[in-house]
């Protein structure tokens, strides 16, 4: 019995030895690629021709956060990363970078259906640093250093999660590290005015335009919208469900003296609420009208506790829905449109702000890529929260 076992053990040992030797022999010839000291996984092994290392295009693009478009007729690929655009053609040693022609040592080729491109050229052209370690056949790519950019936005925008979802793509492609400060609308604009932020994203059109007119901001673009809705108790004592429009809905609340909780903090939502009251020809006052002085989520909570109505942006309501007993009672109408605008702080007022970063971010939001990222952002139940409308130059 023991003789059989020992024979098996010897056989196993020999097999393992053979495998490890074969493995190391194979590894000895393989080139490794590291991106910021982490190994890059490539679908196809890197190839070497002369002194040039070729790698699969898709892996490199993914690693560097770049995007590409493929023209199958011309067999050429257009790579975009931040402000840089590269054009490469299969089998052609001529490539262009932002329009300037550059000669390659080795032309891009297709192997096993995968496009291989010169690693050093592409990486360096897109801003990275490339080092070759001959000792262990390693190519080390170092991403460009990230520049800091400060974005001030509103709490409801931040709480929706949109920025956390789409800004990483921007940061990666443009080499920024974005610091988001989320405060009330008024404070966000103040941060921009004081030069404590580089770029501001809020949804209070009148206030934004006013600030631009006063010379505090430049380069304003409208990028997306959502809408406001009125929520309240299921019982709906004021009968909002039957209201013809938003103005009539608020009038009904006032007439019924039903509890209404206002943001009371000069936020975009509050400004919109005041607009509605003005349109209804009313100044709300009385024990039924509570000025909370709080953020949207807190205001919703208060309305929930008090069985009252409130005006809210759809996104925050969707997010809080599962924790509230409030239901959506009124929606729709041009007046409930909630437009988001982004603008850079005026460098004439604050020379040391990161104007380049602000401009890049604005460009990103209005670009097809940014706009499609906005549209594809969904909440936990798969509902779209923001609707891109940058093409509508108002």
């Amino acid at each position, binding site marked *: 019995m023991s003789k059989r076992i020992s024979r098996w053990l010897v056989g196993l040992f020999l097999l393992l030895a053979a495998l490890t030797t074969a493995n190391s022999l194979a590894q000895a010839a393989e080139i490794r690629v590291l991106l910021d000291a982490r190994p890059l996984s490539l679908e196809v092994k890197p190839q070497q021709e002369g002194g040039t290392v070729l790698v699969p295009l898709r892996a490199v693009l993914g690693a560097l956060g770049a995007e590409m478009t493929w023209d199958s007729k011309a067999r050429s690929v257009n790579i975009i990363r931040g402000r840089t655009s590269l054009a490469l053609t299969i089998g052609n040693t001529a490539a262009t970078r932002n329009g300037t022609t550059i000669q390659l040592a080795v032309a891009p080729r297709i192997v096993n259906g995968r496009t291989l491109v010169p690693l050093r050229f592409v990486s360096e052209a897109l801003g990275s640093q490339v080092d070759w370690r001959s000792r262990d056949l390693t190519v080390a790519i170092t991403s460009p250093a990230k520049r800091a950019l400060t974005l001030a936005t509103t709490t409801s925008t931040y709480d929706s999660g949109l920025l956390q979802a789409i800004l990483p793509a921007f940061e990666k492609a443009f080499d920024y590290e974005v610091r988001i400060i989320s*405060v*009330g609308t*008024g*404070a*966000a*604009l*103040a*941060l921009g005015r004081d030069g404590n932020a580089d770029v501001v994203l809020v949804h209070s059109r009148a206030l934004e335009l006013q600030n631009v007119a006063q010379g505090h901001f430049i380069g304003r673009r409208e990028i997306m919208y959502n809408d406001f809705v009125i929520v309240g108790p299921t019982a709906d004592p004021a009968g909002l469900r039957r209201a013809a429009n938003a103005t009539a809905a608020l009038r009904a609340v006032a007439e019924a003296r039903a509890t209404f909780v206002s943001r*009371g*903090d*000069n936020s975009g939502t509050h400004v919109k609420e005041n607009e509605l009251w003005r349109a209804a020809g009313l100044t709300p006052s009385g024990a039924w009208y*509570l*000025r*909370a*002085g*709080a*953020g949207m989520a*807190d205001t919703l909570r*208060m309305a*929930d*506790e*008090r069985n009252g109505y409130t005006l809210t942006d759809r996104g925050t309501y969707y997010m809080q829905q599962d924790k509230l007993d409030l239901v959506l009672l009124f929606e729709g109408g041009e007046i409930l449109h909630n437009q988001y605008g982004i603008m850079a702080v005026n460098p004439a007022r604050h020379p040391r702000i990161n104007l380049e970063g602000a401009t890049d971010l604005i460009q990103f939001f209005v670009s097809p890529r940014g706009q499609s990222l906005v549209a594809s952002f969904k909440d936990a139940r798969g509902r779209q929260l923001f609707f891109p409308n940058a093409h509508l130059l108002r």
Partner: protein
Amino acid sequence: MLEAIANAVRLLATFDPELFRIIWLSLFVSGSAVVLAALCGVPLGTWLGLKPVPSVRAITIIIYTLMGLPPVVAGLVIYMLLSRRGMLGPLNLLFTVEAMIIVQTLLAIPIIVGLTAIAVRSKGREIRDTVLVLGADHRLLVWTLIREARYGILGAVITGFGRVIAEVGAVMMVGGNIEGHTRVLTTAIVLETRKGNFALAMALGIILLLLAFIINSGLYRLQAGGTDGT
């Protein structure tokens, strides 16, 4: 900064009714809380201070921990109790002045209990033998201890007041900062900051500091009057 001071003076001088309502509410909420906390806390602290240290080690550690209870945590706990879904929901106390007083009382009690116990215990060490040997019964001993430690106890109450008038997390949570109902100086400062009215927020802050300073120095004078010549 100077603009903020000018703002503060202007606000006070024009007797802005909203401002004075806020100031009054700050004083009323914190004052009531401290009075209630003293009514509970001084007897409890005295009892604690009379006990020998080893026998109350556990309670003492708990009290010391609660002294540093973050106001926002206290606010959260009370919020959950008073919420419609909470155990005390039917009382409909959320977002009311009563709720604010409740939470601040809870914040002040550990401070008053802890500091009173310290004052009584140290006085106790000093005068216990003398009082006993002069033929006092237990009730007179306790009463004498409280009287002798009265400045230490007053100090405990002042400290408790200082803590609650300056806090914002608890009253914000359970009060909701509702204009005209539950808005106090600290929550008003948060709101004005959020709105970007930094100068106004600063002015309110100065008023709050002034208030705290006036009250604390007044009480301090009372206390110092008793410890002269010691």
